[in-house]
């Protein structure tokens, strides 16, 4: 049962239950969480092959490459975000539950972020080193991805919720959320580039943090509304 003791369950408990439930289902199918990371690895490998192995050129392009690939892999995560829950009727149950749909959706997005974005931020230094990014820029890479993947996934969740009822919504999803994610790409890659040149990293990270907080507050409301609309379609 999804809601065993609604009488004394608070909003926070509902969030936690939903988070754990979704986390368990992610653990049950680890390939869903691992695929975006593998995709990241694969595409990062393609760049030296396409551009040539010149270390100077790669180091110069590394911030942009890593951030663009992070953006694309977040697109992959967003495409799967609500798909299985929508198909098996869980979203309908969430909409009927005596809790705001926005909060329950946020719990799902959080679980997904922990399994994908967070892991990506932690493993990114490895890919940074492979592309010849200087060691002193790696903390900025991790910090910018840590904040940035939250924005990417929260904005992606809005697009995912809007397109989940559409068959073959994948291409449409990229049209909807890539333009919205461009500021995140700009701030994130700027933070890493500044770190390479010993510039002012913190101001770009502050912008990313501001976007992450704003997305954390606003995006769940849009996701909740969008999921209800998708149920009508």
């Amino acid at each position, binding site marked *: 049962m999804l809601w065993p003791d609604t009488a004394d369950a608070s909003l926070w408990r509902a969030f936690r239950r939903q988070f754990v439930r979704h986390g368990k289902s992610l653990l049950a199918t680890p390939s869903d969480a691992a695929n975006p990371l593998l995709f990241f690895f694969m595409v990062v490998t393609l760049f030296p092959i396409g551009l040539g192995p010149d270390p100077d050129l790669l180091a110069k392009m590394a911030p942009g490459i890593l951030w663009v690939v992070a953006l694309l892999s977040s697109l992959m995560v967003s495409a799967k975000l609500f798909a299985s829950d929508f198909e098996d009727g869980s979203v309908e149950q969430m909409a009927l539950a005596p809790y705001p749909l926005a909060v329950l959706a946020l719990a799902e997005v959080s679980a997904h972020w922990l399994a994908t974005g967070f892991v990506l931020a932690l493993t990114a230094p490895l890919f940074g080193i492979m592309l010849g990014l200087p060691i002193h820029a790696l903390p900025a890479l991790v910090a910018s991805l840590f904040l940035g993947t939250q924005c990417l996934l929260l904005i992606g969740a809005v697009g995912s919720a809007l397109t989940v009822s559409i068959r073959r919504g994948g291409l*449409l999803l990229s049209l909807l959320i890539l*333009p919205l994610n461009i500021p995140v790409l700009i701030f994130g890659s700027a933070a890493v580039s500044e770190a390479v040149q010993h510039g002012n990293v913190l101001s770009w990270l502050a912008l990313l943090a501001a976007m992450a907080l704003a997305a954390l507050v606003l995006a769940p409301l*849009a996701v909740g509304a969008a999921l209800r609309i998708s149920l009508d379609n």
Partner: protein
Amino acid sequence: MWSFIHKLGSPPWFYRFSGTFIRWLLPITVGMLVCGAIWGLLIAPPDFRQGNSYRIIYIHVPAAVVALAGYYVMAFAGAVSLIWRIKMADVAMRAAAPVGAVLTAVALVTGAIWGKPTWGAWWVWDARITSMLILFFLYLGVVALFEAYENKAAAAKACAVLSLVGTVNIPIIYKSVDWWYSLHQPASIKFTGESAIDASMLYPLLLMIVAFYFLFACAVLLNMRAELVWAHRQSSWLRQALGAA
């Protein structure tokens, strides 16, 4: 006042009202466009540095200004339809999306044509051009999302949510002029303080901007009427209205 707003929710009333309204609006718009074009293209003096090539400003700037404002109009109509469930508001929202997309495309193309003699390149990745391109994608997203939904009532709501989320991006588009290095001249029309362009060039530009706003209104109204005719093609009030006209 209230009865006017209630009437706005009624398709038959709106169809009749917009019919009389556009009979006045359309001639005024065409008149302003013709006057502005003649004034800007023939009478205004040539620029001392760019010569006559600057005259594309009389198409480029109005299209860009109205394309940006159009997104707000669309998002506002979307918010009205989400909050008060006024039917005409979501018809207005989806009528505005393709018009805005076309205006954005016009601004991009004229910008490229202007860029060739001025900067020596058709396309430069400068802040404002990139922002307009993003705006173009945002418009296309709304149009494509509406087309993809089977239930058109749900589609209108989904587009309203999307356009509200998109408005978050518009301030960043404006801000980006300050944030990124820009090849453009600094924004030269300000409504407070002295303007950097001469009055003889500015007045036709302002006339063209107003004309483009009117043009936007005409296009959206005509689009809405076409939408209404299609949606109510079976109903008797429409047959009466068409028979009378």
